[in-house]
């Protein structure tokens, strides 16, 4: 028989009555462990919805403190947590939404030296970082570790989401083999973003994570979804796995993590 408490039956009732979720799926969610990189625009809604859904363990890594300029889009934080570490702020928010969830707050930078160890016990990794060095680091680490990765990016009015299943589909380097030159990427002063955009993109990322955990539906494997908020368009682009990809191809040239640091905007 089910071991749900009466509170859990009420909290998750709208999940349990879905044929694709049910009590069994809800237990998978409660037992799942998700690692989120970044507690900013994307990390906030992803963590918020995963916590609401009852994903049992959520780790978040971010080295920043909450600033007033974050609150236009980073919905896990508030004026009460200004100056506090973002991961602590988010942990308080998510755990007050759902006490079933254990949020592990990691106030540090993700790097080539710690990432493999940090992600090794998790089922799914979510990239909500805001810079290319981290995006490539996370991609390469997930390919090497064989971890499913749900990657998201936002800029101005446009967002992108893709789901990387190492060994099955494409990876980020199949899409963009090398990081773009720094000059081509807007620095943070030039890079505006519509505040609701990370809500849409983070919501899509959280949906991908839930489907991966449940083993239901289709995910954005070999596909990139592009959302344009100004035009209200969603576009799916096919991204075939590149057999010559430097990290996931048949003869990879990248066999250990690199030094990804570059002078890109890190939203400090």
């Amino acid at each position: 028989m089910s071991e749900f408490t009466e509170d859990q039956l009420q909290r998750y009732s709208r999940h349990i009555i879905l044929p694709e979720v049910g009590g069994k799926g809800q237990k998978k969610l409660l037992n799942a462990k998700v690692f989120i990189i970044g507690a900013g625009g994307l990390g906030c809604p992803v963590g918020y919805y995963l916590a609401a859904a009852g994903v049992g363990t959520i780790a978040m890594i971010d080295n920043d403190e909450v600033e007033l300029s974050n609150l236009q889009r980073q919905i896990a934080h508030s004026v009460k947590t200004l100056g506090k570490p973002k991961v602590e702020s988010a942990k308080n928010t998510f755990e007050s939404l759902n006490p079933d969830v254990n949020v592990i707050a990691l106030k540090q930078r993700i790097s080539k030296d710690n990432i493999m160890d940090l992600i090794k016990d998790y089922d799914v990794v979510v990239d909500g970082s805001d810079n290319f060095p981290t995006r490539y680091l996370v991609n390469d680490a997930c390919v090497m570790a064989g971890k499913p990765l749900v990657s998201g990016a936002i800029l101005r009015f446009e967002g992108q989401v893709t789901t990387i299943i190492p060994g099955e589909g494409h990876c980020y380097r199949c899409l963009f083999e090398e990081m773009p030159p720094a000059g081509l990427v807007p620095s943070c002063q030039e890079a505006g973003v519509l505040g609701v955009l990370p809500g849409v993109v983070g919501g899509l990322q959280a949906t991908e994570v839930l489907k991966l955990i449940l083993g239901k539906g289709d995910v954005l494997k070999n596909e990139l979804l592009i959302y344009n908020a100004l035009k209200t368009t969603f576009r799916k682009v096919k991204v075939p796995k590149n057999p010559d990809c430097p990290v996931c191809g048949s003869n990879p040239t990248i066999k250990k993590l690199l030094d990804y640091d570059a002078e890109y905007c890190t939203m400090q």
Partner: protein
Amino acid sequence: MAEDIKADKKINIKGLVCPYTFVKAKLAVEDMEVGQVLEILLDYEEALRSIPKSMEDHGQKVLKVEKINDTDWILVIRKEKE
């Protein structure tokens, strides 16, 4: 009463209202094997329509809906699929 059909499992959900009537019934079905029969005792009249409809939407078979006294009904469901 369901004397002609032997229930493998019986649940009493008297006092519950939607959606918890269906939540309890669905969890009971999930824990059963295909082919097994569930007997549900309930007193929430709305659920007499909603549970059979939802069970059939989920691919299960409704064998019986029966009023047993002034306040209570019995629903008998056979699990047809996981």
